[in-house]
């Protein structure tokens, strides 16, 4: 289904070339795939495996460790409602209830139109602003059930499409370092100098 677009394939190759070991590009390429499709499909993982010379199992293993990579189709907007202690005490349950009612899906589900995916989340480090939620990882603080309903209405009407890019988008402004200016990483196979933080000691004196 989702092979890299021609443009992204060029970018992917360039990303691979930035590292002394192609394998190091797995995470950046997973981001790229998620940016293109909103989520990461099996085909995308196979393609990444080919590009960096590892097995698809290794790509899957690496990717699935990270919470923010999604391996199932996902809506254009991902609504994460925090349910951990502070938020729970401040009414996260009602937020979730309102969202489920408004969207017609349970936590974990995606609306039929593919617009919004609703997830329960653990603490988002905004406990002082509880209860809080995130839309595509953008915060909304001290949210009320009505606020949730309004938010959903705005997402549906497109009123927020400028502020919140589709799920998976990494950045709206892309930095580009021309290859002649890229410093590049030192190849660990070539660089034999000891790590800087280990003080060099007299032979036998270290323990």
């Amino acid at each position: 289904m989702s092979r890299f677009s021609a443009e992204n394939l060029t970018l992917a190759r360039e990303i691979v070339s930035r590292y002394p070991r192609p394998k190091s590009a797995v995470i950046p390429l997973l981001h790229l795939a998620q940016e293109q499709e909103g989520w990461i499909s099996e085909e995308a993982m196979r393609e990444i495996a080919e590009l960096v010379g590892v097995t698809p199992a290794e790509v899957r293993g690496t990717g699935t460790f990270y919470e923010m990579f999604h391996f199932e189709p996902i809506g254009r907007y991902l609504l994460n409602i925090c349910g951990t202690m502070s938020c729970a005490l401040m009414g996260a349950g009602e937020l979730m209830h309102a969202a489920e009612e408004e969207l017609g899906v349970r936590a974990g589900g995606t609306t039929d139109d593919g617009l919004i995916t609703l997830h329960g989340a653990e603490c988002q480090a905004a406990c002082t602003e509880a209860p809080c939620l995130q839309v595509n990882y953008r915060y909304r603080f001290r949210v009320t059930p009505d606020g949730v309903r309004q938010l959903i209405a705005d997402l549906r009407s497109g009123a927020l499409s400028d502020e919140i890019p589709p799920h998976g988008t990494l950045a709206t402004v892309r930095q580009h370092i021309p290859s002649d200016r890229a410093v590049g990483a030192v190849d660990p196979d070539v660089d034999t100098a000891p790590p800087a933080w280990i003080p060099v000691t007299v032979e036998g004196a270290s323990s």
Partner: protein
Amino acid sequence: MSTTEDTGAEVDDEVVEPDPDAVSITVNGRSVTARRGDLVIAAAERAGDYIPRFCYHPRMSSVGMCRQCLVEIDTGRGPMLQPSCMVTVSEGMVVDTESETTKRAQEGILELLLANHPLDCPVCDKGGECPLQDQAFSHGPGESRYVEEKRHYEKPIPISDLVYLDRERCILCDRCTRFADEVAGDALIHFIDRGNATQVNTFPDEPFSSYFSGNTVQICPVGALTAKPYRFKARPWDLEQVESTCTSCSVGCRISVHSSRDRLLRFQGVDDEAVNWGWLCDRGRFNFESVHADRRLAEPLIRSAEGLVPTDWSSALSITADLIRSAVDGGGPGSVAVLGGARGTNEDALAWSALADALGVESRDARLGDGLGLDLLDLPRATIADLASASTVVLMAPDLKEELPVLHLRLRDAALRSGTRVIEFTQSGSGLTRHAWRSIRHLPGTGASAVAEALADAEVAAQLASGPVVVVAGRQNLAESAEALSDRVGAVLAAAPEAGVLPVLRRGNTMGALAAGLHGPRDAADILREAAEGRIDLLILLGSDPLADFPDSRLARTALARVGRIVSLDGHLCASSEQADVVLPVAVMGEKSGTTTNLEGRVTPVSQKVTVHGTARPDWMIALDLASRLGVDLGVADLGDLTARVTADDRGVWSVPTGVEPAHFESVVGTNYDFRLVLSRRLYDAAVSTQCSPSLEGLAGGRGLSVHPSDLERIGVASGDDVKVIGPRGSVVLPPGCRTASAPTRPVRSDCSRPSPTASNSSSKRTSSPSAPIGWSSSWRRSSPSCRPS
């Protein structure tokens, strides 16, 4: 679990000089001498203090995954709990493996490991030999405070054709995944997901189809991984075991043979420092199933008007003796020939060689046209240990992963972890290509110039001069002559005179059979040619199947059709024995004792574990019986007399006698064709032991043709079309698959690992059926009769 991890750490009392690498530590109050670099867990174990562990494995890198090995270690800053598999010894270190704190920590870890463990020991194959069970008993708290619901997964899911995974039982020790990645190089299983949901799994639709998958079952410290052939077959306490040697190929891995109620149930790898480090390939591990196959021969057969019919031993033997006598008396000893012997023990080979000597029969060969000339076997021999510690290994051999899998593992380990540099000359790439320092691709027939060119390279010359060199020599391309190989090896030896040679032989005991004298002035090809001309009256097949194994199958067919009489000694009925006049059923591995000789010349015992099938007998016994019927004295009364004739030197090496003509193998590589042929084999092929093992049978891919996709495109072959390959000796129709890219014409550096899109070939005209010089049928054939019960 494997046990060997000492690599000679003992300090010799006689030595006065203090060992500069000696480190003294205190373990549980006792002073212990360890070596620099030793892990605490290993040093303590050698000192007699066992520290519980799950993830630590002496043949793999430590990862500190399970934390079961926590002990109190004091390096001068007070005792601290540390995982002993992650800490190396240092001078003055104090280790306490029995303190109250250690005990509490280990109990705590076990309680956590068991929090999600289903405890279904009564229905678990591992029960009774399970490190989790054993260590929960020896180092666990006895009771758990967890009352919560455990994690649930679908009960065993197949992760390959051979291995099942029960994720509920898995304790996430990373042994299997580490093995797959680090040792086998087939990272097809991996930890998936995170936290409480972490599980071992494959990529969807991409099974763990590694040639080495069975090892993960052996090293899994719980019953999470089970092997299909053994599932629910026995309880460990019902198993009897004996140590033996795998003879499925010439590596000679050490195995432990397990049986119950007189049936072989499984093979486990035994950690032999010199040979296999505890690993086995899946063919060696699972092809014991063929011992109990329906196609096993239970009684002698003789040809009658109705075909082969069962008979008793005494008539079978007297008929055989008559056949031998009349052939020797009629056409002289030259009209009798013996082919085979490489699948039996040294003793079998010695007995038949002695019988042939006594009768004056000179036409004998244990190689079937796919072996090596004696000139090569006569060169200074290297051992596997030499290979693993060499600074350079020159590889002029078939893909070791396909032919000698565990040798591949040892060489891969040396290349990745011991700094051994591999210079590979290859015609179609191999499992080691990506780890080679130089992988030099050349077209069939141009090996000599490729070698000369490489040796002229200053960097290569410097590398060869930098330390010990081992040449691994074998028939990479069965369509090429063995002489060409000898010349190439000679060229390398001229450049590196101290180098040792490790010969690549496929069949298990080729070396022993040759050392026993199963070779003569005429090799298998000569013998078959004489037979085809009608000059052989009696052909004796010692467990050999020329119809399936001799590369020129047309010659083999003509020969077997023209030969006067055929006597076949075999465990299973094969294509050739079906044409025999007398078939004598023999004991196979697991059913007989003796010794075998691996590719190093190392002699190791093989052991009988189960009663022979039917009335089968070992080959040597048949030879002795025939000798007495023929009235010749072999000077041998029993097996012991034969074993005494295995004259290994002090290195344990039994050498092939020297001064014999090199055997010659004809080349069919022509230059006036569009393509050049590389004939090679896969691990799973038409071998009887594979085809008669239900678990392996389906893994053999049949024969096929690898052509570079751009060549196929150029000659206009659509995918799915079969291709007719034409050569000087005949033609064959094959489905093209693209296993590996064909060789680019220029040598490539190993770091260019992506297949080159360069078309592989010399001149090429556009034809609808590509022709290639072929005369020998591919050996991936699937022609043998089925072993399924009818």
